[in-house]
């Protein structure tokens, strides 16, 4: 209702409309491409060969295959484990703890720790994958420091504990985002509220749990939403570290989608996988958005 009284806006509606035009065009393109991705999921389109030209509509066959053929459900489970431990438990909880602890420390310590964590986040995915493969292989840092000196034979971690290693690598890479977000959120909690709780005799733990956490709840929900989406569809780190293997041990849905679409060339089936992923993440987001809505 306010902008009715804002003449610099109302007298320039045409200019503002023109300003929105490029964005609307690009968004239109995004909708168009997404619509195509949906359409492909009902076809047997292939990357190469006869079916890349003479494809046909196959109805729900691709979606039936998600449940009747091996691969999709296993990958879904791997993805759930990966997202839960690396994003929700690892990045979110660790990021929050760091944000709380670093608020109370000197600025030098804070800067040093911040920069260290940021380095992981800033590193390109492929380089991060090199680092973690090198660190966890038989001659890597972990073996040289913690296994070989104690007389044990070196362990090929990346092969034997592939999923935990990939999960740890992702925590290492992604914690900075959650830390920065929570740190900014805690800054927005007014000092008076915290002081008042202190005067009322709240312990530090109570102050965090009962005062700060409820206030920054919208930030927590937003953070959960973003990192869940990203981790759910996150591809390069895992692919460059393990390629989904050994076997299918680290084949998350994103890797499964890539393998089906581009290694095997089943674009139709691949599109069905991405549509299924969209539905799953969409449902999860609704849960988070409810959290955002407002309490009780």
């Amino acid at each position: 209702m306010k902008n009715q009284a804002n003449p610099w806006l109302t007298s320039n509606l045409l200019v503002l409309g023109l300003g929105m035009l490029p964005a609307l065009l690009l968004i239109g393109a995004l909708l168009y491409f997404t619509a195509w991705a949906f359409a492909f999921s009902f076809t047997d389109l292939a990357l190469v060969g006869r079916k890349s030209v003479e494809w046909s509509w196959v109805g729900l066959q691709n979606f039936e295959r998600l449940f009747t053929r091996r691969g999709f459900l296993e990958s879904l489970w791997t993805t759930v484990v990966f997202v839960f431990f690396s994003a929700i438990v690892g990045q979110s909880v660790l990021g929050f703890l760091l944000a709380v602890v670093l608020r109370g420390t000197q600025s030098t310590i804070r800067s040093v720790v911040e920069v260290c964590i940021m380095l992981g986040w800033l590193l390109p995915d492929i380089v991060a994958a090199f680092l973690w493969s090198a660190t966890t292989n038989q001659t890597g840092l972990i073996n040289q420091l913690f296994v070989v000196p104690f007389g044990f034979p070196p362990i090929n971690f990346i092969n034997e504990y592939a999923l935990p290693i990939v999960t740890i690598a992702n925590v290492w890479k992604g914690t900075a985002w959650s830390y920065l977000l929570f740190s900014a959120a805690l800054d927005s909690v007014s000092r008076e509220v915290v002081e008042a709780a202190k005067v009322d005799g709240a312990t530090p733990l109570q102050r965090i749990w009962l005062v700060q956490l409820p206030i920054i709840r919208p930030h927590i929900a937003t953070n959960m939403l973003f990192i869940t989406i990203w981790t759910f569809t996150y591809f390069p780190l895992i692919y460059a570290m393990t390629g989904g293997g050994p076997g299918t041990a680290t084949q998350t849905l994103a890797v499964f989608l890539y393998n089906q679409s581009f290694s095997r060339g089943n674009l139709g089936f691949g599109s069905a996988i991405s549509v299924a992923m969209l539905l799953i993440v969409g449902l999860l987001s609704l849960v988070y958005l409810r959290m955002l809505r407002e309490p009780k």
Partner: protein
Amino acid sequence: MDQGPSRLTAIALAFMAVIWVSPFSWLILNAFNPLSTGQLEIPRAFGLDNFAMAVSGNAGRQFLNSMLIAAGTATLSVVVGISAAYPLSRLRIPGRNAFLWTLVLLRMLPSAGVLVPLYFAAQRSGLLNQLGVIIALTILNLPFTLLLLKNFFDTVPIELEEAAYVEGASLLQIITRIVLPMSKAGIAVVWFFSFTGAWNEFLLPLIFARVQDAFPMSVGLYAAFGTQGAINYGFLTAFSILYAAPAVGVYFLLRRNMNTGFAGVGVKG
């Protein structure tokens, strides 16, 4: 800020920082070792030969390609984003929030899913080149960019704009003198996200860049595995450091803006 920093916390934090940077040891030790074997060992020689090798040949061109793609995507996203996010923030367009969140939900479609239609469209319009990569990445970025920028503009008090209007400022002046300077931190953060995202992007340029001259560093690094026969770890690690450096550099330039900028991320859409 309540109690003085306890010694125990400081030690725990230092310990964590060491763990966090320890994987870099392999990268550094190999990159500065001309006789690198890819093992984790203290080098017997020290030199910059690997870096010399990494900057010769195709690397310079790949660096420029990456820079063009990343800076182009970031700048295009921010410019297109600002000119749409300001009206979205100020005009009461019905359903604008639902619209923005729908877009964000749409972007949950894994990018590998829209890659194929994107590729066909680029092929048909002759955009299988750097410009095509920039436009494609901007399209994929735009939902998040719009949402974040709108949130930042929402925090600029409209009273300031009113005052400026009364003083006789035009719309353009209001935007360039008041709105943009006040949301500088947020814009810097959005630009930085788009820049690093595009700099790291691998899949899209791999499929769009058909000739070696058009490869950005991410694809070049990946290709270096195949072409060298036996993997040359010295080259690989030195190249990795050069590849990682700009994002780290840009971060340090924008570091002071980051915290302010992040406050806007959590604001409700």
